[in-house]
């Protein structure tokens, strides 16, 4: 499909990690680089006529794109009452996107409406020979896919996500989709409870690798102290340049990739990851999309009842918070499996917090989640 002019004059904000030529490249606080080229996804936005804005050019456009590793765009969209979409791994080029965790990174978006998401994805999606992990698959017409309607849609209801005290808003939203003509099917995702642990391991290992490039030689922070060896130059530059979370991640990743832990943690995590993906593949034989909350309720994180199942309490919860973040528990499975996900507003809590309905689809099934979300937005949500 020709994308020229599809976003003519529309401002699109490009956040973090994604290179925009001549703009500051904001990977971390200490690396002050200027991007030398446009990421493919930015070049495509320009081709579509969009006005590309970055963090330093302040205004408030309604369309934003950012790199997503563990489902952040969906959680962010929920918090702001917006629509968030994380495409399938390989759907959108990562060329020019600074990697965080390479096997999960994908450029996602936070936008106002499901229609916006369809238009923006139309522009972003597609094969890129410059990205070896970009899928060489045709891109459907996402605008046309919106019109499928709720009737006849098979919606999976994964009981693992609802078995503890969940927000009533999401449960009601799914019920109402059923009343509007969708078929609600119970599905099982039995390995969901291991997702955060698997994510923590894979993330640390991949971050340790990706942050290896910061050595104080070619770019980034270099220590001003005297050094007595090349290793000392690396160690001092990295010790000064990395923040607490980066140090934790790199040291954990280095440890997990070491001989003593490789099989027990890293390979085991890759195998459980395969099982998480298999869970989804099996479930999507019975349904077109799945609906569930974007995040566990706060109650789940705090009570023993849900807590023991979902997490073994760490030794020092406050101290490890940078890595173990149960808020991610419901969005990381999609990132691990490489499938697509979307969040659409579905009401507010009694306290007035916006609540998102998470809709997951099979790999490269973006047209299905867009159809379901659009039908929900147009037909079901009052």
């Amino acid at each position, binding site marked *: 499909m020709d994308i020229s002019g599809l976003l003519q004059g529309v401002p699109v904000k490009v956040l973090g990690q994604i290179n925009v030529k001549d703009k500051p490249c904001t990977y971390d606080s200490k690396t002050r680089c200027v991007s030398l080229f446009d990421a493919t996804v930015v070049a495509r936005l320009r081709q579509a006529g969009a006005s590309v804005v970055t963090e330093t050019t302040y205004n408030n456009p309604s369309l934003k794109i950012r790199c997503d590793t563990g489902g952040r765009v969906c959680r962010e969209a929920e918090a702001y009452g917006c629509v968030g979409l994380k495409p399938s791994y390989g759907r959108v080029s990562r060329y020019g996107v600074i990697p965080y965790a390479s096997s999960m990174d994908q450029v996602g978006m936070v936008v106002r409406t499901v229609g916006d998401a369809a238009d923006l994805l139309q522009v972003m999606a597609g094969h890129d020979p410059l990205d070896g992990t970009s899928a060489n698959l045709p891109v459907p017409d996402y605008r046309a896919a919106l019109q499928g309607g709720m009737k006849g849609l098979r919606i999976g209801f994964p009981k693992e996500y609802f078995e503890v005290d969940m927000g009533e808003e999401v449960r009601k939203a799914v019920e109402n989709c059923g009343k509007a003509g969708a078929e609600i099917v119970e599905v099982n995702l039995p390995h969901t409870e291991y997702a955060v642990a698997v994510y923590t391991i894979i993330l640390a290992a991949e971050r340790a690798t990706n942050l290896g490039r910061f050595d104080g030689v070619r770019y980034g922070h270099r220590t001003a102290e005297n050094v007595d*060896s090349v290793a000392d130059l690396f160690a001092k530059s990295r010790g000064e340049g990395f923040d607490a979370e980066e140090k934790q991640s790199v040291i954990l990743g280095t440890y997990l990739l070491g001989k003593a832990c490789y099989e027990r*943690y890293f390979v085991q995590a890759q195998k459980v990851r395969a099982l998480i993906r298999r869970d989804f593949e099996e479930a999507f034989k019975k349904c077109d999309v799945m609906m569930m909350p974007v995040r566990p309720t706060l109650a789940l994180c705090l009570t023993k009842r849900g807590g023991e199942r979902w997490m073994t309490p760490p030794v020092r919860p406050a101290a490890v918070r940078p890595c173990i973040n149960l808020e991610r528990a419901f969005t990381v499975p999609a990132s691990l499996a490489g499938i697509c996900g979307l969040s659409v507003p579905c009401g507010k809590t009694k306290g007035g917090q916006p609540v998102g309905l998470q809709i997951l689809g099979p790999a490269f099934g973006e047209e299905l989640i867009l159809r379901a979300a659009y039908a929900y937005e147009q037909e079901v949500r009052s």
Partner: protein
Amino acid sequence: MNQTINVAYVADLAHIALTPDEVVLLQGQLEGLLQYVGKIGEVDVSGVEPMVYGLAEAASAFREDTVEPSGLREQMLAMAPARHGNEFKLPKIVEDA
């Protein structure tokens, strides 16, 4: 079984200089993390192949390795911590033989 980690040793492998306070802090954090992630050990994975790539469909496309001009040398050197002509400049290091 609780996994122990020699933080100072691993930090050395990872080329990160830590203060003594950081070593103590990370010791607690990392042991907590290892205890948490260790729960994946209870999953029966017999016969399961590890998932290495983000998606099987997206695994390693190859293309011809051809030399192409990047045209970015000057701009890249301009951002280096230090340069000497067309090279990255490193501090003078005299290592023991």
